[in-house]
């Protein structure tokens, strides 16, 4: 497909991935029509602060906006908010939106994101039970997110723990219920999970690990959570952070290849060459991990997808991919993560947990594959550079705190 043929780009999904794509197409010199379709009322905004500064009340929605709303008209990006794409006609290259309107495309970008999993429990629809994905979700929580309120967080992933941290800082009573025997079980090592468990416990968060919620209790509104072992926990507010599922409905409808996300090649192209998929909804080969296919839920992945697609559609220089990166803020702890830790067989530490500043380096054989750095930005950035450039350092060298990280990275092969 040559760029000369592409006059109309439609992007379904106006989260960070979709918003960045529109912006970067224009920055890359694309002159044709861009239509950006989103279900939410707002222009694209950043989600990470929702469970941090936005929940705390430090940021308002304007501050979360990727770009001011006026930029879209200035840059001739047709932003259709509160609009859902419902049907793709691949043969005739058209998208039908809710209400029946049909929009033609030359290239289509699916950035549909992910939907938070609902609690599969009786009472999950009671007033006071909330999911946590959109600004509207957080706004709905706010009135009862006050000092002294009893909050139960279900799910001890990053969202759940970030919400717990903000809640403690605002004086709520917090219990975290997690079905696994440790927090962050899906996303980090037992060692780092243990550190965060200790930290939250010290901050006054109560944990029920290996706990199975059976029922959300309440008449008109939530009053508590019953567990399968018979325990009952009182609650004024329940927030579920039990993961997301990729929004692949429209991709499945039109017969694209889907396997835990819309499957693409490394250029984010789906099984239809005129359709791309990026962000939380898409799975693509990871260039730094032998082409293993992964679906990442992160700002990094949203932005990378936007850069890759914009480069392809504008015929620009191919984007050189960064190693995956993530972050989480809890209390005064800044966790910065580079790489993908899955499949590690060894972990080496730089610094000690007691100092609340340390980094865990994950290895698969001799190869450094990921780092979790807590209040250790140099270790984070250094490891990210090593992974990006396919270099490594032996654990014994990494553990030598007498040499600064920068020097170690320079010496790596």
């Amino acid at each position: 497909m040559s760029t000369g043929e592409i006059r109309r780009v439609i992007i379904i999904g106006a989260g960070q991935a979709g918003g960045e794509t529109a912006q970067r197409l224009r920055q890359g010199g694309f002159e044709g029509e861009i239509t950006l379709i989103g279900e939410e009322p707002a222009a694209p905004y950043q989600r990470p602060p929702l469970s941090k500064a936005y929940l705390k009340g430090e940021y308002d929605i304007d501050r979360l906006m990727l770009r001011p709303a006026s930029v879209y008209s200035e840059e001739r990006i047709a932003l259709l908010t509160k609009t859902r794409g419902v049907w793709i006609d691949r043969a005739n290259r058209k998208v039908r939106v809710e209400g029946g309107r049909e929009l033609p495309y030359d290239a289509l970008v699916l950035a549909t994101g992910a939907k938070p999993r609902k609690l599969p429990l009786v009472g999950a629809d009671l007033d006071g039970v909330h999911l946590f994905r959109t600004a509207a979700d957080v706004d709905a929580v706010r009135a009862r997110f006050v000092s002294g309120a009893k909050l139960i967080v279900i799910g001890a992933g990053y969202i759940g723990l970030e919400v717990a941290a903000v809640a403690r800082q605002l004086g709520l009573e917090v219990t975290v219920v997690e079905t696994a025997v440790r927090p962050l079980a899906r996303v980090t090592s037992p060692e780092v999970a243990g550190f965060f468990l200790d930290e939250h416990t010290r901050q006054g968060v109560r944990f029920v690990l290996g706990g199975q919620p059976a029922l959300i209790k309440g008449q008109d509104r939530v009053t508590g959570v019953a567990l399968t072992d018979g325990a009952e926990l009182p609650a004024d507010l329940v927030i579920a952070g039990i993961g997301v599922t990729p929004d692949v409905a429209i991709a499945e409808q039109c017969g694209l290849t889907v396997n835990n996300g819309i499957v693409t090649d490394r250029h984010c192209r789906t099984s239809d060459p005129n359709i791309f998929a990026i962000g939380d909804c898409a799975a693509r080969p990871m260039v730094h991990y032998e082409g293993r296919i992964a679906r990442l839920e992160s700002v990094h992945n949203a932005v990378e997808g936007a850069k890759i697609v914009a480069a392809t559609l504008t015929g620009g220089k191919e984007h050189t991919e960064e190693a995956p990166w993530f972050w989480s803020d809890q209390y005064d702890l800044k966790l910065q993560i580079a790489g993908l830790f899955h499949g590690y067989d060894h972990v080496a530490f730089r610094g000690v947990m007691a100092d609340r500043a340390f980094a865990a380096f994950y290895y698969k054989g001799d190869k450094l594959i990921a780092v979790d750095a807590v209040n250790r930005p140099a270790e984070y950035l250094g490891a990210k550079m090593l992974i990006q450039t396919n270099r490594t350092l032996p654990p014994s060298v990494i553990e030598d705190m007498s040499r600064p990280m920068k020097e170690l990275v320079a010496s790596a092969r």
Partner: protein
Amino acid sequence: MAKITYIEHDGKEHVVEAPNGQTVMEAAVKHAVPGIDADCGGACACATCHVYVDPEWLTKTGEQNSMEQSMLDFANDVEPNSRLSCQIKISDALDGLVVRLPKSQH
């Protein structure tokens, strides 16, 4: 409120009026100043909002904090007047601030 001038590597100037409390990074992003990507939105996680503060302003913008210093250690073309613009808060005292953007972010 402060008037801030961003100068791209090729000399192109962007003058922006920004409210107090925003960061120098946010003001640039909101006005689509090219060369400040700020992928992480100001969480000090990506080091893509590197700027050079004009020397006469250095006392007013303050020094690099320790997290910022560590991040800049790994950035390209770092100079003594390098800052991450997400770590500079706008106030009346910064009215007239001039920052330059490094070549590597172009």
